[in-house]
């Protein structure tokens, strides 16, 4: 005998359109009620002096019985002769949209209820929109309470026409519309004599025709690393194959970071040994060459890598109590990756029940609770992802605000560059074309990986002094180091640039690109630039692999710098001879989260250098080289 097949369905719709009543009745009509349950509830109703409601079958919790609305997603099981069903009863009240989303996101098919008498309502439309966004493609619409509309075919047709038109605008094609009266069981498990004009299927027939979702085993491989285990002296990368298949001998690329290795074994416990694992399987793998890979890395076949970018467009629905807005930092979780992120721009905020663009009185732009938006996100480090239309599990994400998941989003297809195509993309799109000598090879030869030590601070804070001293120390330690000095670069590479914010940004961008090349060549590249804007420093950070950009805040009070005034620039700027001088007539934005901060008014140069060396030792030179 085969194990019992299950299909997960969610029941959605506007509040009071009869979802819970429908579920109760469906249970009864398919003979799925536990013995004595109906009688028990009838007795309780009698004792309380209220009429028995089918809805009470689901509403087991006290608070719900009192309010008569479903607050949370509840799940129960019932069966037809064909298979078992898990019913997810989702609340219809707008207040509880996060519960509806929770329920619907876990379903394989949806039944959407509409009150024949009231017709299409706000949440009928909102739920339709969200089902689509959540990726539910198998949908049937039940036009309920036909008894209150005299079982009128005309009324049924009117509701169907109106709702079908709306669904079409959002790209949803329901399988069928069925006229029902949940309270009386019409067309639920058997055809109703009250609707002789209806020749279509019953609800149960429709359910039995839905298909159980299968994981996408024929798409490109995506195997996100969930954790790295060191049991029994072996290094096992644990994870679930989200799409495609993985085989022993497969050459894998891990994104972001572009490390490569080959699958040595596929690990399972107490299961037949197999050299292949398909989408949906939670397994472990070992590699032939050890590379440093952590949770979050997405492994794929070298020929079919995911996108790897720090900027992308998304369609987001928001459930948080606080609005989703620009200028605030959030955390993005996509497969097993996590990255700090913020909104770069909001293209459009949409009311999902009307599709109208939301206009705010004061012209402010943010995404409020229960709204949907099209926007561009920027992550602090590159993220590996796919378009939702290509690979679903890596094409969607959630946003965490503080302690809570506050929203979800999908990434529509767009013209993003692939890592493997050409080399002419914009610098913010991080990817790399590889030679035969890899970063790891160089790191092994040199005894350290390349990186960028970015000194930032006011003129006169001590950047160049520290940079040259650090370079000397590293050289004496046998490391490959080189200082990119601001003044030197302005003599040649950037001699065409001035000091406007725009030129400063371009100056930093070019220096960042050069520093990145030095780092890729295996050199510890030390830069000494005022680099006053956080945004510009972040730009360089994003050019480099995680952990390879070390931001050092060379911090001395303005008064101290001005007093030192090694180059006489403060005096000249005070005399208005130098325009846009940082700290005097142009702003300096102190780093928000530098890897190292040096108070040069309190520390000697040697102490500053030691602190940077300490940081390198702890965070890069030892742990990163694990070959």
């Amino acid at each position, binding site marked *: 005998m085969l194990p*019992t097949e299950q299909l997960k369905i969610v029941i959605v719709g506007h509040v009071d359109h009869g979802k819970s009543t429908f579920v109760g009745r469906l249970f009864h009509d398919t003979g799925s009620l536990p013995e004595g349950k109906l009688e028990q509830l009838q007795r309780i109703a009698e004792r309380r002096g209220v009429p028995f409601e089918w809805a009470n079958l689901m509403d087991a919790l006290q608070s719900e019985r009192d309010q008569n609305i479903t607050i949370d997603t509840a799940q*129960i099981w019932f069966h037809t002769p064909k298979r078992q069903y*898990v019913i997810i009863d989702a609340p219809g009240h707008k207040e509880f949209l996060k519960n509806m989303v929770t329920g619907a*996101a876990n379903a394989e098919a949806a039944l959407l209820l509409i009150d024949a008498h009231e017709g299409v309502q706000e949440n009928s439309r909102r739920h339709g929109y969200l089902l689509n966004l959540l990726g539910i493609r198998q949908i049937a619409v039940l036009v309920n309470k036909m008894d209150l509309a005299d079982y009128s075919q005309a009324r049924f047709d009117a509701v169907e026409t109106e709702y079908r038109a709306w669904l079409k605008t959002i790209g949803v094609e329901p399988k069928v519309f069925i006229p029902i009266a949940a309270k009386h069981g019409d067309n639920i498990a058997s055809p109703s004599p009250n609707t002789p004009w209806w020749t279509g299927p019953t609800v149960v027939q429709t359910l039995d025709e839905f298909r159980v979702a299968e994981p996408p085993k024929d798409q490109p491989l995506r195997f996100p690393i969930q954790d790295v285990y060191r049991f029994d002296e072996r290094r096992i990368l644990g994870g679930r194959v989200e799409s495609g298949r993985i085989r022993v001998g497969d050459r894998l690329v891990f994104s972001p970071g572009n490390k490569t290795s080959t699958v040595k074994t596929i690990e399972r416990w107490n299961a037949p040994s197999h050299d292949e694992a398909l989408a949906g399987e939670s397994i472990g793998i070992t590699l032939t060459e050890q590379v440093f890979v952590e949770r979050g890395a997405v492994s794929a076949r070298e020929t079919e890598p995911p996108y790897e970018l720090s900027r992308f467009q998304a369609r987001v629905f928001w459930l948080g109590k606080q609005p989703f807005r620009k200028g605030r930092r959030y955390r993005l979780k996509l497969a097993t990756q996590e990255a700090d992120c913020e909104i770069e721009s909001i293209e459009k905020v949409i009311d999902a029940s009307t599709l109208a663009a939301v206009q705010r009185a004061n012209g402010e732009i943010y995404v409020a609770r229960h709204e949907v938006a099209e926007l561009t996100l920027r992550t602090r480090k590159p993220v590996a992802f796919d378009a939702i239309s290509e690979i679903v599990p890596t094409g969607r994400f959630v946003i965490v605000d503080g302690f809570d998941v506050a929203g*979800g989003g999908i990434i529509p297809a767009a013209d993003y560059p692939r890592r493997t195509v050409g080399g002419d993309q914009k610098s913010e799109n991080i990817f790399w074309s590889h030679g035969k000598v890899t970063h790891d090879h160089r790191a092994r030869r040199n005894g350290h990986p390349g990186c960028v030590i970015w000194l930032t601070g006011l003129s006169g804070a001590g950047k160049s002094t520290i940079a040259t001293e650090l370079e000397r120390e590293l050289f004496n330690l046998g490391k490959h180091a080189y200082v990119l000095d601001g003044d030197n670069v302005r003599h040649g590479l950037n001699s065409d640039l001035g000091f406007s914010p725009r030129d400063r940004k371009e100056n930093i961008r070019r220096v960042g690109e050069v520093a990145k090349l030095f780092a890729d060549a295996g050199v510890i590249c030390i830069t000494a630039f005022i680099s006053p804007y956080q945004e510009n420093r972040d730009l360089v950070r994003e050019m480099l692999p995680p952990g390879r950009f070390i931001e050092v805040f060379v911090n001395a009070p303005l008064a101290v710098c001005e007093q030192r005034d090694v180059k006489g620039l403060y005096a000249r700027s005070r005399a208005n001879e130098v325009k846009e001088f940082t700290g005097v007539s142009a702003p300096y934005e102190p780093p928000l989260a530098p890897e190292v901060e040096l108070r040069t008014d309190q520390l000697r140069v040697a102490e500053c250098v030691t602190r940077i060396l300490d940081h390198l030792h702890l965070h890069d030179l030892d742990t990163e080289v694990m070959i």
Partner: protein
Amino acid sequence: MDYLSKLENQSIYIFREAFNKFEHLAMLWSIGKDSTVLLWLARKAFFGHVPFPLVHVDTTYKIPSMIEYRDRLCREWNLQLVVGRNEAALREGRTFPNGRATRVECCGLLKKDALKTVLDQHGFNGVIVGVRRDEEPTRAKERYFSPRDKNMEWNVEDQPPELWDQFKTDFDKGAHIRIHPLLHWTELNVWEYIERENIPVIPLYFANERGERYRSLGCFPCTSPISSQARTVREIIEELRHTRTPERAGRAQDKESEDAFEKLRRDGYM
């Protein structure tokens, strides 16, 4: 992929998320079929290892063969066991069998309070529990990762959204998260899996000569066997395919009042 494998893979995924995200993780083990399947799934997830301690809340009223079975598996599977007891309540005799507490109060003292003490003592902030949605209605509303505040209370009206296998793993100091890797399994699935994997379960589940077996295990004063002729796992599966009696019908504490169990769970019961 067959249905049991789907359930298994999802549970393994949840175990691994929990192990990655919680530094102080423990798993409740009630010796019953569910928590034994849970234990088996943990070994699946971690390649034969159970990399966190098991907590057994001992009321001292468990059916004696349960304790023997527990100690045997601990030896054979090399498990770390932490036993929690409400010594004060036991010393003072504030228990239902002593006639000095109702059934529900007794559960509250010997299970819920004992659990809170053992969590506090060891500083566990993630606790894996083998509850299933199909067991009874309040459990149907659970999340896979379900927060409890510092008083162990469950705010069922305001639960975090849970979608696309992204779980709640960030929380306030003092709170803890209950992790439910078996939430989506049914009683039938559990037995089908026991059969497929050949998992050793305690013999109390099989019918004895008197034609009785336990369908759900607990403390002997509040748990009664059902009449059944099912003597093998296969026969239990057959029986469950046709029964319309609820699983916890033999658990007396659920029935003290209409919402007794619901209140107990809000206060932190498993």
